[in-house]
Structures are given as C-alpha cells and as structure tokens.
C-alpha cells in the first residue's frame, strides 16, 4: 500500500495518514527535520522535547482529569527493568497496635486515633501514622504497629529501620524507642535500646492513653 493522507471516513476521524508497508510514518517541521516518527511496530518517537499540558496515562491508565502529571494503572504492572518506574499510589491506611499478635479490647480515639498515610513509588512504600489509645485492652506480649498498607519484601532475615517520631504515656521505659520492619511483614516491631541490645516493648510498658507517631519507608 502506498503512503497516503485522506479525510476520515467516520465522524470521529478527521484525518488519516498512512505509511507504506516498508517504512515509518514521519511528521517533519518546515525545515524538513523529522519531529515525530511512528514505526511499523507502532513505537512513537519524539525527536525533541514533548509537552503534555495536562496528564499522561501509562500502562493503559485513564489519565486523571484533575491537575497535571502521570497517571499509572490502578493495579501495578510490574517491570523487571531496574530503570523503569512502574507504580505510583498514595492514600490512607488503618494503623493499629497488637500485643503478642492480638488486640483484644484495644480501642482508639475516634477518627484520628488510627490515622496513617502512605505513598508508594516503584518498589518502596513511604508511610507515617499517629495512634492514640483509649484502652490498651487485655492482650499481652510484644508491641507492634499493625496494618501497614503493603507487605514488605520477602528477602530472608532483612530488617529495615523505621522511626518513632514522638510518643506519650508509655510506662517504665529505660531507653529510646526503636522500630523495624521484618521481611514479608505488615507490622512494625517496637523495641527499646539498652547499652548492648534492644528489647521488646511489651504491653506492660503501654498505658490506656499511649500515643505514638511513627514514619519510615520499606521495600516491597
């Protein structure tokens, strides 16, 4: 088929430019320089910079109608290429606490007592939370922050350090609080420092009005 330019044949098609079967379709500037090329494999190449005044959808995502930026698919389309940004998502999450893996009778301040924010960029999740108890309940054992928005990566025995930014109303602490996320986990372990190691914070260190703010990031 020879190259052609024709008027559209349907109401939604204004102009049709068709390359011949042996070559790409090119748009040239008035000095003859190629500005845009569409290959026979439908790959589009801009010779210069490209400007998108609003939003750009990738991976089949519908471009957002608000603001300007890049819209990613609602469900990640993971890339195995180390140089490819393949996901972006932001939102809120439900933070909580458990003692020994349970949270019997634990209650929180309404609305703001379990508040969490997250942003996922590629394979890393950035998170923060504020937790305010109104009752620590009856469960016993090691304290954990629960409900992380994504499960951490599954590399064996790899922990990522997190930050306890501020806290109130713990009981009997003897060292600074530390936080870490283990592999394949959706919880944050809370410990306190001693001269030589870290030990678990258990229910006995927590009161009915304990308040924790924490943040960090982890790989998924």
């Amino acid at each position, binding site marked *: 088929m020879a190259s052609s330019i024709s008027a559209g044949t349907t109401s939604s098609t204004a102009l049709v430019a068709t390359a011949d079967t042996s070559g790409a379709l090119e748009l040239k500037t008035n000095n003859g320089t190629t500005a845009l090329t569409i290959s026979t494999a439908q790959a589009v190449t801009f010779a210069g910079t490209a400007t998108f005044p609003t939003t750009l959808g990738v991976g089949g995502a519908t471009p*957002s*109608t*608000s603001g300007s930026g890049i819209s990613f698919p*609602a*469900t990640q389309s993971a890339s195995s290429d180390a140089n490819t940004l393949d996901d972006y*998502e*932001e*939102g*809120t*999450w*439900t933070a909580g606490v*458990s003692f020994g*893996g349970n*949270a*019997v009778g634990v209650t929180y301040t309404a609305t703001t007592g379990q508040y969490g924010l*997250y942003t996922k960029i590629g394979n890393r999740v950035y998170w923060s939370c504020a937790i305010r108890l109104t009752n620590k309940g009856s469960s016993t054992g*090691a304290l954990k922050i*629960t*409900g*992380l*928005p*994504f*499960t951490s990566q*599954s590399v064996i025995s790899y922990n990522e350090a997190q930050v306890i930014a501020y806290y109130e109303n713990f009981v009997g602490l003897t060292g600074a609080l530390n936080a870490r996320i*283990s*592999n*394949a*986990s*959706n*919880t944050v*372990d809370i*410990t306190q420092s001693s001269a030589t*190691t*870290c*030990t*678990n914070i258990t229910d006995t260190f927590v009161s009915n009005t304990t308040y924790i703010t924490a943040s960090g990031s982890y790989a998924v």
Partner: protein
Amino acid sequence: MSISKTTAVDQITVTENGIILYREATHIMEDGKELSKTYHRTSLTPGQDLTGQPANVVAICNVAWTAEVIAAYQAASAAQQGV
C-alpha cells in the same frame, strides 16, 4: 448536574504467608466524569479479629486462614521478633 460518591473494595491481595491486604477506592463523580479518586488500605494478619471488615474480605480470610496458615504465621512472627 449529578454528583455521586461511591466506595468499594477494588483490590484484595493474599500473600504467601497469609497476610491479606485490601484497598477501598472512593470515587466522586459528576455527571459520569470522575472528579476525584482516593484510596484507603488495610492489611490483616492471619488469625486477626475480623470485626467490622467488609464481607467479601472476611469471606476470603475465612478460606485463606486455615489453622496451618495461622500457626505458621505466628511461628514466623515470633521468630522474627527475636528479642
């Protein structure tokens, strides 16, 4: 002009060790055009109390959380705590 707000669980993920993650998407639409979209995520560990969770999530938890899965998760969690 018609404005509507809908919230629904649009994603449920079961991980290898039994953790279940789900996402609630809230859409605000005006005459069929999306004005905003927000997400809220929740994750549940095997054996966790499911009071107040969406019915479709509870159904999946009840299938995925066998006694063996719960025991394995708790054992792994205890081993990770390690201190």
